[in-house]
């Protein structure tokens, strides 16, 4: 994305560390991105890659005595990391709103949907109960909750998972935020309901002109809704590109791993899934050099020492990657992998000698 001056959200070199008994967990280690109005950024990665911490930090929800936050979060030019608690409270809901994964634990079980929505409205607007309720109904209709005028008086447990998530989205939209952050909004839902919720989020973004951050572990989900995708690994963005570009020519071996380990309906049925070996690293003692090197089938000796920066791909400035392999070697590797080769086959076809054991 062009880091244009008009970006709604700019995150610069964000670092978040949590002090624990075992040491500092560096959940985010220098993450930067920008997001314009009306655009959706998808963030994908495994558990513990830092994608949720990034979202929570933008919302000012990671503050605490044992948390160390560095960097900048600029919303319309306003610095949020240094903002007072009072200012943050005013911005939350009003400027930035969030939709969480599990609507059943995010909604209060004892209050009716309408009451919870009215509360969200009245937290930011000086309106009477009747007006707040009218607004609540309007919101439920906006998110296409079927029979909204009756369901406004339902309790959360009386709604299905998809309806509850619609109610959560309605609440997030109560004050017309400029930025909507959706953290795994469809993970708890059935696949047909997931498709409906993703379609709804797309429509709302276009109707309301919001910017959106969509966080998911599922590349398929972000592919459906995001204009641009950032792939996170061990607290960093390792690849970022416009959605079409990311799938057409992914550059990072971790992105390849995510793509080839996802079972697909359009691949030949016999095609083997290629898992990413090993598991995500400790964020207390992250690996030296490239953080992906212990799991990377193409790692070279120097990758253990040199930490690659996120840099534009030659010839495609909109795409950035943090990888030490030469661009032509990456291209050759992915062409093989996309054609169904195993990492070993791709490596020898691309002329990379197997790395001698360390």
């Amino acid at each position, binding site marked *: 994305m062009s880091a244009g001056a008009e970006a709604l959200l700019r995150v610069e070199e964000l670092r978040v560390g949590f002090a624990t008994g075992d040491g500092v967990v560096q959940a985010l280690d220098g993450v930067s991105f920008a997001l314009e109005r009306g655009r959706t950024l998808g963030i994908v990665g495994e*558990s513990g890659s830092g994608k949720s911490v990034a979202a929570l930090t933008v919302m000012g929800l990671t503050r605490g005595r044992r948390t160390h936050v560095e960097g900048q979060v600029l919303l319309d030019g306003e610095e949020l990391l240094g903002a007072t608690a009072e200012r943050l409270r005013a911005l939350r809901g009003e400027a930035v709103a969030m939709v969480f994964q599990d609507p059943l634990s995010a909604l209060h079980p004892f209050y009716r949907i309408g009451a919870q929505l009215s509360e969200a409205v009245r937290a930011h607007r000086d309106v009477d109960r009747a007006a707040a309720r009218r607004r609540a109904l309007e919101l439920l209709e906006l998110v296409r909750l079927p029979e909204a005028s009756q369901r406004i008086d339902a309790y959360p447990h009386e709604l299905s998972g998809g309806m509850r998530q619609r109610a959560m989205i309605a609440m997030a939209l109560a004050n017309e935020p400029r930025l909507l952050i959706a953290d795994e909004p469809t993970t708890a839902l059935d*696949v047909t309901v997931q498709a409906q919720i993703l379609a709804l989020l797309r429509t709302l973004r276009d109707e309301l002109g919001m910017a959106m951050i969509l966080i998911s572990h599922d590349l398929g989900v972000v592919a459906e809704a995001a204009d641009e995708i950032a792939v996170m690994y061990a607290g960093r963005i390792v690849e970022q590109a416009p959605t079409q570009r990311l799938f*057409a020519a992914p550059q990072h071996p971790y992105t390849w791993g*995510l*793509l080839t380990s*996802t*079972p697909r309906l359009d*691949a030949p049925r016999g095609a083997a899934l290629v*898992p*990413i070996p090993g598991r995500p690293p400790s964020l207390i003692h992250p690996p030296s050099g490239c953080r992906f090197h212990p799991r990377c089938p193409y790692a070279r000796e120097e990758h253990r020492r040199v930490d690659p920066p996120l840099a534009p791909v030659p010839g495609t400035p909109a795409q950035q990657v943090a990888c030490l392999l030469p661009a032509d070697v990456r291209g050759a590797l992915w062409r093989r992998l996309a054609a169904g080769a195993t990492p070993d086959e791709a490596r020898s076809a691309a002329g990379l000698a197997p790395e001698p054991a360390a």
Partner: protein
Amino acid sequence: MTPLVEVDRLVKRFPLTRGVVFQRRVGVVSAVDDVTLAVAEGETLGLVGETGCGKSTLGRLMIQLLEPTSGTIRFDGEDVTTARGARLQGLRRERQMVFQDPSGSLNPRRTIGAIVAEPFAIHGLLRDRDERRARVQELLEQVGLNPEHYNRYPHEFSGGQRQRVGIARAIALGPRLLVADEPVSALDVSIQAQIVALLRDLRDRLGLTLVLISHDLAVVRHLCDRVAVMRAGAIVELAPVDELFEAPQHPYTCELLAAIPRLPIGGGQSSSST
């Protein structure tokens, strides 16, 4: 080939109650409603459908973790619907289950060695300590865990590793039928592929008959020979996996398939020509 498991006109109803102390019955829900199905020895059958369609209930009925309201269950040609006591215990050795949540299904206060050894204790097998230990370590190795980790506790393992422990326990007694209920849906994508590969490998090596319960059609397509699509307690479509995915017959199957997000790899054109 003779079917290993056959269920005939199987029905399972659960009462709906209201109130806490004096539970009044206010109705029944038919979780499984007149299902007839046979699974051949060595076959992998997928049970798919959305939340509440009855797929887990059917899976549990098949290995008699639940008692059917009506209908019959045959195992290896024999009617076992009314099996109880020692007979049922004997059947348990041949039919095992892998659960979805590898944290919830492992006792946090026991070592993984003890967890995997428990089936032997329950069935009074391998009474010799050293022998049992050797067998457990062999099982851990078989599912890709380090046998040295025998004395560690579940919390020391990642989700994928815990699922491996659950699988080791399930295959400990050498079952012929394994019912896996959403075995990968709690795991990260990269780890999912590892567990799918493990299940496939164990099935082939041990000649297991596998019933895979999943809401993820892509995973099912990857592992299964035949797929049963369930909706509201009934099977709406049952077909060999290629037929189901290439020419789905039931509108509900079409709806499920259409809802799956696609990866636009290669800018929309797929590499399916290879």
